[in-house]
């Protein structure tokens, strides 16, 4: 033992520690920050352990449409938008496994836009957004193995190899990513509202046929169902409101059948425009996402359902949930800053 703690070895250990700490600092600064999935994925690690009661998962239809500040303020629901742009179901499955390392949510709400809209077995357009926020682990490697063809793996892993040369593009927020910034980081709950208005055409789809769910998507949907059952969480499959196409509706019909087989709740919120008071002239940011005001209406209806289920407690005024109060303040600030003349 005395041989281990010689002066020479202490110097060695010291420099190893210094090197690792430098890499941590540098990595924190240089890592890519993006509200399309990286921030949502990375934000999970800043959340107080075992505080998330409802994890909202899926594509950007979650982190744009599900207003976690409203869910907290009006229902006391401790929700987190743990999603990524165009996230395929196989990535959602590994996201779920990552989530359960740190949280024990009572409910998982899974949006189904991605499997309805995208049919390829390997989808690369937003894969970076769905990967770079995750910590290194065997789970991450398995996710990459499933999501990326082997010949393209080096483009996405290791993450440091991707962002190490970002020193030319640094912004103020890059220096707010250290462990001493935990209060601000914990107040981010994944929700990234849009504030533009783009009128959309209200679709009246009545499509009874089903089909279009790819084998890979179906396989991972069933794995998600099975995994949430094992973990004892309630799974709710849903479709956030947006202008649906006939092909997409067919896929939703297929998923509804699977949900029925498995005894899982399935809600298509495209059937509830009137109930939520959705205005197609003013509540959309673009052809796929709600804006802030649309997200409030949708989230209110979603929150009503979650609160009424009796499975998720009201956490307002409880110790350990202060980050959600701070989150509400930050979203209010954002509304003031970016809501502009559109504010209602």
């Amino acid at each position, binding site marked *: 033992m005395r041989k281990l703690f010689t002066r020479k070895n202490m110097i060695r250990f010291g420099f190893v520690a210094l090197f690792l700490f430098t890499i941590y600092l*540098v990595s924190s600064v240089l890592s890519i920050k993006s509200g399309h999935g990286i921030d949502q994925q990375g934000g999970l690690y800043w959340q107080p352990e075992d505080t998330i009661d409802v994890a909202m998962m899926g594509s950007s239809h979650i982190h744009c449409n599900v207003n976690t500040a409203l869910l907290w303020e009006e229902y006391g629901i401790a929700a987190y938008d743990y999603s990524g742009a165009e996230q395929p179901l196989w990535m959602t499955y590994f996201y779920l496994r990552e989530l359960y390392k740190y949280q024990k949510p009572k409910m998982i709400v899974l949006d189904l836009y991605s499997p309805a809209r995208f049919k390829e077995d390997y989808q690369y357009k937003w894969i970076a957004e769905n990967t770079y926020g995750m910590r290194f682990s065997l789970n991450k490697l398995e996710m990459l193995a499933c999501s990326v063809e082997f010949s393209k793996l080096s483009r996405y892993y290791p993450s440091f190899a991707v962002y*190490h040369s970002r020193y030319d593009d640094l912004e103020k927020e890059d220096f707010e990513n250290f462990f001493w910034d935990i209060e601000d980081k914990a107040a981010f709950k994944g929700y990234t509202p849009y504030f533009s208005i783009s009128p959309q055409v209200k679709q009246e789809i009545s499509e009874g046929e089903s089909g279009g769910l790819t084998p890979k998507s179906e396989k991972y949907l069933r794995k998600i169902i099975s995994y949430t059952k094992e973990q004892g969480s309630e799974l709710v499959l849903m479709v956030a409101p947006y202008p649906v196409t006939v092909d997409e509706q067919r896929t939703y019909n297929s998923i509804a059948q699977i949900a029925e087989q498995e005894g899982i709740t399935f809600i298509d919120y495209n059937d509830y425009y009137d109930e939520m008071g959705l205005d197609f002239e003013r509540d959309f940011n673009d052809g796929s996402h709600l804006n802030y005001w649309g997200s409030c209406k949708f989230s209110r209806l979603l929150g009503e359902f979650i609160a009424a289920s009796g499975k998720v407690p009201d956490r307002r005024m409880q110790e350990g949930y202060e980050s959600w109060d701070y989150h509400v303040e930050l979203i209010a600030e954002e509304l003031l800053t970016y809501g502009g003349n559109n504010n209602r």
Partner: protein
Amino acid sequence: MFVSMFFPVFLGIVVVLFFCLPVRWRSAVLLLSSYVFCAYIDIRGLAVLLSVSVFGWAAGLRIESMQRRGKRGRSRSIAVWAIMVCVLALCVFKYSGYLVERLGLAEALPESVLKNMVMPVGLSFYLFQVIGYLADIEQGKSCAERNFWFLGCYFAFFAKLVSGPIEREKDFLPQMKRLSGVKFGDRGRLSTAFTYMLWGYFMKMVVADRLAFLVEIIFGGAKEFDSLGLAAGAFFYTMQIYCDFAGYSYIAVGCARIFGIELTQNFKAPYQAENITDFWRRWHISLSSWLRDYLYIPLGGNRKGIFRKCMNTMIVFLVCGMWHGAGLNFVVWGLLHGMYSVIDYLFQRKGRKLPGSRLLTFGAVAFAWIFFRAEDLSHALVYVFRMLTAGVHPMQWKSFWIMLQLSYAEVAVICISIFLIWYVDELCSRKGMHLPFLIQQKQNSVRYFIFYLLLISIFIFGIYGPGYHAEQFIYMQF
């Protein structure tokens, strides 16, 4: 290969096998891992390497056998024949593709034939080793090696396979026979090995690969730049090729040291040279000494008068140029250096020393590199002509900055890293020792601080990852 993700994994596995398996298997471990390394790069290259190795091994034994029987004439003709076969193989692989392209035959030949004309990895280097080995046996300077494991390793050792150094059998083989005595726990050896590799990766990844982007833009668009821009391009390439090749060499030396093998130092601060003769004693030392021993001296060296010496010098540099590549630009590069050497010799004969000789030597070398880098002779001549006649136009400098996609951070990294290279070379030149040994003399805290700085620099400023493709080691194409 050294900057690929494959290499650290490969090296780690070889180190574990080397030190964990019985010592009598060590040469086999190195040989087989070298073949795996070669196969990973190019499976066809492995077939060529194996063929050349077996050929060299068999020819060496045959030459020695003839000598033992007193058949000197026979042994000489076998040696000559074997060497001619090696030279022919080198010429075919090096020049066939070039000739096919120049004669416009590419479309007439099938794809499979064209594919086989691509030169196998490391061929130029290990063929020279075979030639040197056979010549040494024929001249009685060394004995033929019966053990194929040892000789195969001499030709194929992965650390030096891709771009040398061109080892001599008398230096390398005895080390193979002492592998059983190499201990893993020799900290001094591992520390210097680590330092060599770290410095090599710094030169390659931080400096050479970074400058490669700029050089590609400048040489690819010579008509867009003024004289200053083109001179800068020549300077960048001068630094790029040095850091690329020397960086590779240091990594190779470091790798080999892990296994207790000392490879030839290929570089000794070449840009600190006082004259061109001195430059060639510092640059690609293994090649220049090989050409001296196996070409220059057999031609007569400087023993046949001034005119023959000058002729021999020109021939050696002509061959040197042709060895580097198929193209008239390489021939011109070689002849330029030949001319420099002749002029330097004549000056030194008169006892004269040129003022600013170090700067002049650097300038002459940098000028010649233009021909080395250019796509072909006509591009090189256009580059040189524009560099000398375009003039300096400060109004265009902002557009150069944009074209080169430079930022203040990048400029800072380039300036600091080039300064560091110069400073280390100057220091090593004055102390007469390489960086790892200089660092070994320092206190532990200083040594580890240097390691820490180099590692952090490589991690942050190294050119790797998606969006970058690790620049092929320049000398690998030879």
